[in-house]
Structure formats: structure tokens, C-alpha cells
């Protein structure tokens, strides 16, 4: 308090006219700090609750999935489910081999990856290393628009636009086919692939690029021998996330790939994916509570495990590439 009193007196002596003595009123500042503390705590609580919601939702989903799945495996042996090659739960002669659905899912995802990875990676390299700032600011929003298109639109794009083209080229193509769904799905995940890869490329320190340039490397040599190898684990993470996204994608395959659970790799034929099967049962007249209905939980759990493993894998890779430069 001594300070507070002496300061205003000292100030005119020093010749400065402006003074702000209020800052030294202890009672007011204590009330202020109490209020600040309450606001702090309130914000903290609200943020915590929001975070809690997503944790609870996840837990709820897992519990529901697991409960029904365990019941399902009480009736169908898990080995039969995982190794069987006939999937006919909705027919009179029931068979619960999930492999045709897994086969369909993987084939569609592979087609999507074959489209998305090269184009996405090259786009990322172009944006991060070659594009002038102005062009970059033009291309990025276009990519983001691509990412914002509803998947149902992609689905009909596959069915109404890509499939007819495929049928012109390969007349044996079925109306519902894996190729068209996979290709269009590739374009759907392209923005994600490009954007994560670009982040990985940009994370390569400028030092390294300069080091390579200083040795007389051309821009292409810097990119191909320093930047891309340096960002490799990040790029791999992007690939894995893309696969995970392709596996989980529903609408495009439900619309364009058909509903026939089949083994094989003929891209021009119809196949059913795990997601498409879940849609088929959920929307159809399958009575709730029966074994037919429970199949979707078993398939859902398997799907969940597959994407979870993929995401963990990409997490691991991302962490490794962060460490590389630190």
C-alpha cells in the first residue's frame, strides 16, 4: 500500500502526466481474481463435459456392438464366421461365412486406393513443392469442395456417370460393379490423401531442402531424394487412413456396388461390402432381435476392429515421423 501511495506522488515529480492508480486497489483486484477463477473453472468444466460426451458415445457404441455380437457368437461359432466363404443369412439355407463381405470390402478399398494414392500424393507434392502461392490458394479450396460433397452424390455419380462409361468400354460390366464404386470412392478420399500428405511434406524442415539445393540438386531431385523420403512415414499414415476411410465408406458402395456377397477379384461384377450389407439389413424388413438382425452387429464389430487397427497403425507411423527431426 505504501507503494500505491507513493507512486502518484512520484509521477508528477518525474514529469509524466498520465497515471493509472486503480491498478493498486487490492480489494477490487481480489474480487476480480475471484471472478476470474470462477470463469476459469466454469470454462474448464464445460470443456471437460464436451470431451466426456465423445468418450461416453464411443463407450456406448462399443458396448452395444459387443453385447449383440457376443449373443450372435453364442449361436454361430466364431471360426465359421471368420473362415466361411458363403454369406446367406437372409436365405432359407443360412450360412454365416463373412469372407465374401470382407473380400468385397477389400477389393473396393484397393480400387479406391489405386486411384487416390498416386493422384493424391502427386497433388500434395505439387502443392507443397512446386505450386506458386497464388495457384496453391486456388487449388486447395477446390480440393476442399471435393471433400465436402455428400457421399450419396458420389454414389449416384458412380452409378449414373462412371458405370455407363465402363459399360461402353467393357460391355460385360454389370450395372452394379466394384470398379465404378471403387474409382469414385478414390476421388472421394483424394482430398484427405492429398491434404495429409501435404502436411507431411511441409513438415520436412527447410534446412534439409536448402542443404540439398546447396549441393546442386534440381528441384525434382530435392523432392524425390530428400523431401518425399523424409515425409515417407507421414505419407504412409495418409495411405492407411485412406484405406481405413475406404473400408468404412458406405453410401457409394450401397448405391453403386450392388448387394451380392461374392468371392473373387472381378472388378466388373457386383459385390457386397460389409457396410453395404449393414445398410441392406437396417433398411429392409429383417425382424429385430433375430439372428439375421444380429449379423449386422457382428459385421459391424469386425469393421470397427479393422478400422481401429488401421488408425492405430497410422498413429504409430505419424509419431515415428515426428521423432525423426527432433
Amino acid at each position, binding site marked *: 500500500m505504501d507503494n500505491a501511495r507513493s507512486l502518484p506522488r512520484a509521477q508528477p515529480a518525474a514529469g509524466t502526466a498520465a497515471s493509472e492508480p486503480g491498478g493498486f486497489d487490492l480489494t477490487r483486484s481480489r474480487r476480480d481474481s475471484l471472478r476470474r477463477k470462477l470463469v476459469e473453472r466454469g470454462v474448464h468444466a464445460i470443456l471437460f463435459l464436451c470431451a466426456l460426451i465423445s468418450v461416453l458415445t464411443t463407450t456406448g457404441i462399443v458396448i452395444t456392438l459387443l453385447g449383440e455380437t457376443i449373443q450372435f457368437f453364442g449361436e454361430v461359432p466364431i471360426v465359421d464366421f471368420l473362415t466361411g466363404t458363403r454369406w446367406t443369412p437372409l436365405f432359407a439355407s443360412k450360412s454365416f461365412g463373412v469372407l465374401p463381405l470382407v473380400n468385397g470390402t477389400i477389393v473396393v478399398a484397393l480400387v479406391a486406393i489405386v486411384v487416390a494414392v498416386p493422384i493424391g500424393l502427386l497433388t500434395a507434392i505439387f502443392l507443397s513443392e512446386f505450386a*506458386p502461392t497464388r495457384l496453391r490458394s486456388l487449388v486447395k479450396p477446390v480440393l476442399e469442395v471435393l471433400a465436402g460433397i455428400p457421399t450419396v452424390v458420389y454414389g449416384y455419380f458412380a452409378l449414373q456417370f462412371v458405370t455407363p462409361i465402363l459399360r461402353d468400354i467393357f460391355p460385360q460390366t454389370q450395372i452394379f460393379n466394384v470398379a465404378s464404386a471403387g474409382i469414385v470412392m478414390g476421388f472421394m478420399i483424394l482430398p484427405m490423401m492429398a491434404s495429409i500428405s501435404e502436411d507431411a511434406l511441409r513438415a520436412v*524442415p527447410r534446412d534439409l531442402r*536448402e*542443404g*540439398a539445393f546447396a*549441393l*546442386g*540438386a*534440381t528441384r525434382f531431385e530435392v523432392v524425390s531424394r530428400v523431401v518425399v523420403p*523424409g515425409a515417407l512415414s507421414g505419407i504412409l499414415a495418409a495411405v492407411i487412413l485412406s484405406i481405413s476411410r475406404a473400408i468404412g465408406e458406405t453410401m457409394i458402395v450401397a448405391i453403386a456396388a450392388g448387394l451380392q456377397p461374392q468371392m473373387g477379384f472381378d472388378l466388373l461384377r457386383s459385390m457386397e461390402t460389409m457396410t453395404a450389407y449393414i445398410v441392406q439389413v437396417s433398411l429392409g424388413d429383417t425382424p429385430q432381435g433375430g439372428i439375421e438382425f444380429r449379423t449386422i452387429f457382428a459385421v459391424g464389430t469386425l469393421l470397427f476392429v479393422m478400422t481401429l487397427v488401421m488408425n492405430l497403425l497410422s498413429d504409430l507411423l505419424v509419431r515415428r515421423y515426428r521423432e525423426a527431426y527432433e
Partner: protein
Amino acid sequence: MINLRIDAQTTDAVATPSQNGQTDAILMTRSLNFWYGSAYVLEDVNCDVRPREVTAIIGPSGCGKSTFLRCFNRMNELIPTARLEGSVVFRNRDIYDRAVDPVEVRRQVGMVFQKPNPFPKSIYDNVAYGPRVNGYKGDMDEIVETSLKRAALWDEVKDDLKKSGLALSGGQQQRLCIARALAVQPDVLLMDEPCSALDPIATTRIEDLIRELREQLTIIIVTHNMQQAARISDRTAFFTVAESGAGVLVEFNDTQKLFTTPTDPRTEAYITGRFG
């Protein structure tokens, strides 16, 4: 604005001739002006660098030392807004001439950076990178060994060439970067505060190395450390910030003369520690 630079040509007359008697400059800048966007960075720099000498560049932070150094291998043009006027002449050829390929310039004018920046590759691949991108067809093992020896790193790493360059200590990493630059067999080596991230022992080793390399090539080194400039360089250039906000070359002379009998009051103020 008064520009108190001392023209290199006039100092030559008073300077003691260098060991091999060569006085022709290997690198010259003429009326060099430089901008980053609208920021004026270098103002009318005229400077002659003699071959097989160590030229030190000193000056306070922000005086454009590093930018000046990077004008010699066209590294500045990697920054989109950079703009340069005037000329930089290397062996009687303006390296900013339209016909000159910057890649070729950088092959002959190597560079070592402030922070050691080995590639996340093996020691061998780090050194072999330059020869590979430059289409070297000879014996790669030999050039890797020679370069590591010239950088005084060979004995420490010869049994472990497959180890990652990032696994080395800071001082070793910097010598690896020097080896990497030497593998391209440049005539000039630019060093941008190569010891600023290193401990005193590692610094001593780099300084010893610079003294050895001086026999074989021309070295231009930017340093924050005046003692270092005094220890290793033949000639020293002092830069400071002019009223225009840009860096200017104030004084360029034999290192001993510049540190004992500076002609410009600003140089004197800086080297006696009254400023900067």
C-alpha cells in the same frame, strides 16, 4: 547517404600479398542491392573475395550477413519475394546472368549451414548425395572416403558408414555436412555461422578444419563471434545496418588491420563491444 565502404582495390595496395601471390578476386559483387519483398536488405555492396583465403563476415544481427553470403550461390532465390540488383561475378562470369544455371553455380559454390542439417540417411548416403545428383560416374566409395577425410571425420565413422547421419553428435553432424559439401568438389565454400550450434570443443575442431581447407579452397564464413573471425580469417568484412534499414559493407580489410586499426568509427565501436 554516405557510404564509407573501403573499396577492395584500394586496400589491395596496402595489404600484404597473400601466400601464393594471387590478388585476382574469385568472387566479386558490384553495386549489389537486395530486397525481400519491400524490405531493403543490402545496399550497394562492392566486395572482392580472393581465392584460397578465408574471408570472414561480421556485423550485428539483421545487417544482412547471411543474405549477402547466400547471394554467392543463388540460394536467396528459393524465397519467392527475393529481388537482387547489381552483379555477383564468379571467375569473370556474372552468376545472375540469364544464361547461368543456378544448379551449376551451387555445384561450384558449396554451402554449410548454421544448424547441422544432415539428411535422415546413412553417413555414406549423405556424402554421396551431391555426387549422385550431379551425375558423378567414378568410384563413389573413394569420393566418400576422401571427403570424410578432408572433413576430418573419417576416423570416427569409417566402421559405421551405414549409421544414420542424425545419430552423430552436433559437431560430427556439422563435419558430415562439410564432407557432404566437399564431395561435390566446389571451389568456394560458404559457411553461415557453422559453429553457432556447437560446443567449444566441436568449434575448435571446425576451426582447425577451416584452416586446413583454406589450402585447397576459398572460404567465406559468416560469424557472430569476433574472436573466431580473428582466429581463422585472412580478411574480414564488417557489415552494419545503415539509416535506410539495409545492410551496408562498412569496412573490408586484412583481419589483423581491421581488428587493430579500424578506419571507420562504426567498425571500432562494434569490435570494442560498444555496439551490437
